[in-house]
């Protein structure tokens, strides 16, 4: 019993160390990678532009629901005028960074894990190494750097669309004055809230992309599976671990910044 607990702990600690080394190696090898800007631009396109529809849709519906729920709760206390504050603070502080990150994990993160897993299986990663090209620098570093750009931008977009969704349900459908709604938004959101939002977006971006890249890159190490099954297992693990990491990091960051 004690032995198996010990084994479990040692395996997890070793895994964390391996993950930390992977991230450090990727960041360090970025400096030696040639034509990095073009690869970063491509990664921003994949993680940012291609994920825009899902961010727009989820952001809009989140805003709509917040407006709807918020109106009925505030209506009980006769405080419908605070609807803008409720929607904006919920979005900026929590919902936009967390939901945008989870959506991006589902779209860009899973695709990254699967792509790297297939590249590992078909020896493309080994081929890079035999050419003297750092696979960390060529495949992982651009994605990590791109996440620092694309995640905050997607989160900001999520906030804007969400606020507009809240206004749509609150003002257009439920009759809150649009001027009251938007002035409430303006008064409620402070610089610290926006800073918290971007700190979370940056952290979640780095965390999720590095976890997904790590899982895909090491798809050949998946126990009990090989080939396509190993890629599938690595992708599933990447998505699950990324979502857990986002929620756990959200709690830690909030507890420091609140």
């Amino acid at each position, binding site marked *: 019993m004690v032995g198996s607990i010990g084994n479990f702990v040692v395996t997890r600690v070793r895994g964390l160390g391996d993950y930390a080394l992977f991230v450090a190696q990727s960041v360090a090898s970025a400096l030696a*990678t*040639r*034509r990095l800007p073009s690869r970063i631009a491509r990664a921003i396109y994949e993680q940012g532009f291609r994920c825009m529809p899902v961010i727009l849709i989820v952001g809009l519906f989140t805003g709509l629901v917040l407006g709807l729920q918020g109106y009925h709760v505030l209506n009980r206390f006769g405080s419908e005028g605070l609807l803008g504050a409720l929607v904006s603070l919920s979005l900026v502080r929590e919902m936009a960074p967390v939901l945008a990150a989870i959506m991006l994990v589902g779209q860009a993160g899973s695709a990254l894990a699967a792509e790297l897993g297939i*590249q590992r299986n*078909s*020896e*493309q990663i*080994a*081929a890079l*190494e*035999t*050419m*003297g*090209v750092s696979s960390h620098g*060529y495949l992982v570093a651009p994605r990590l750097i791109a996440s620092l750009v694309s995640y905050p931008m997607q989160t900001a977009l999520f906030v804007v669309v969400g606020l507009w969704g809240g206004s749509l349900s609150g003002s257009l459908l439920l009759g809150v004055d649009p001027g009251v709604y938007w002035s409430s938004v303006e008064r409620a959101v402070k610089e610290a809230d926006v800073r918290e939002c971007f700190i979370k977006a940056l952290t979640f971006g780095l965390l999720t992309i590095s976890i997904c890249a790590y899982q895909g890159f090491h798809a050949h190490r998946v126990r009990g599976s090989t080939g396509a099954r190993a890629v599938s297992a690595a992708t599933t693990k990447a998505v699950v671990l990324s979502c857990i990491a986002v929620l756990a990091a959200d709690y830690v960051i909030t507890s420091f910044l609140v």
Partner: protein
Amino acid sequence: MSATTTTTQASRHGSAPSGAPILHVEDLHKSFGPRTVLRGVGFSVARGSVFTVLGPSGAGKSVLLKCLANIEEPDTGKISFDGRVMDFRRKDARAEFHRRCSFLFQGNALFDSLTALENVALPLEQTTALSRSEIRKRSLDALKQLELEDHEDHYPSMLSGGMQKRLALARAIVTRPEMVFFDEPTAGLDPLRRNAVFAMIAKYQKVFGFTALIVTHDVPEALEASSVVALLYQGGICFCGTPAEFSASDHPVVASFRDSSDALRATLAAVRRGEEVISDEEP
């Protein structure tokens, strides 16, 4: 088989390659958990030669090649390249080795999201400071030399198996390496394509002058195309010599490997005669 035995046997066959060896391997061991794959492998490869490692499936040929190309790390042993013992833990040694050697994978390992031209240009883009126009020129030259100039914009999935093999070779030679490692270049190909691949290796080896180290289990083709053949059996080199010496060898493992088609012919004749056939080995 130990390295000493290997060297002794190679000398007895008079197969010591002329000139200084470009690659010298000594007492290489590799295990995966409890399974030992390589047990003291040793041989030398002469510069400009075509050196083929033969062996049955599962003998450890691909593992040997991956150890030599620094894809796998051997447990013990010494690999010398151009007279210098390689310490792959050193970044500069790794970089120099990869600059001077290329590797052609069994499954080609082409980048499926890149076009033929981008695949060939990749090693130049990432490892040299050449200008974009120079990279494009050299990549197009390599494609032309491999008769793929009409397919520069095609993705690997749009090319036939033979073309993919040539594209992989174009990518391997575009950096003008001194040595190219070929991992089972004819695996899964029909006899005509096998011949074509060996002819391609022989042709381009002559054109570009690189040293080729091939692992395969295609005996007749290897004997035709190679300067030296070695036989890997149960993790050790049990024969190393010229194709003529291989054909004349009375070494039991060499004989059984070389004459496998004769054995099959005899077995089939016995089956046709209605005789009971006892197989030595399960397939």
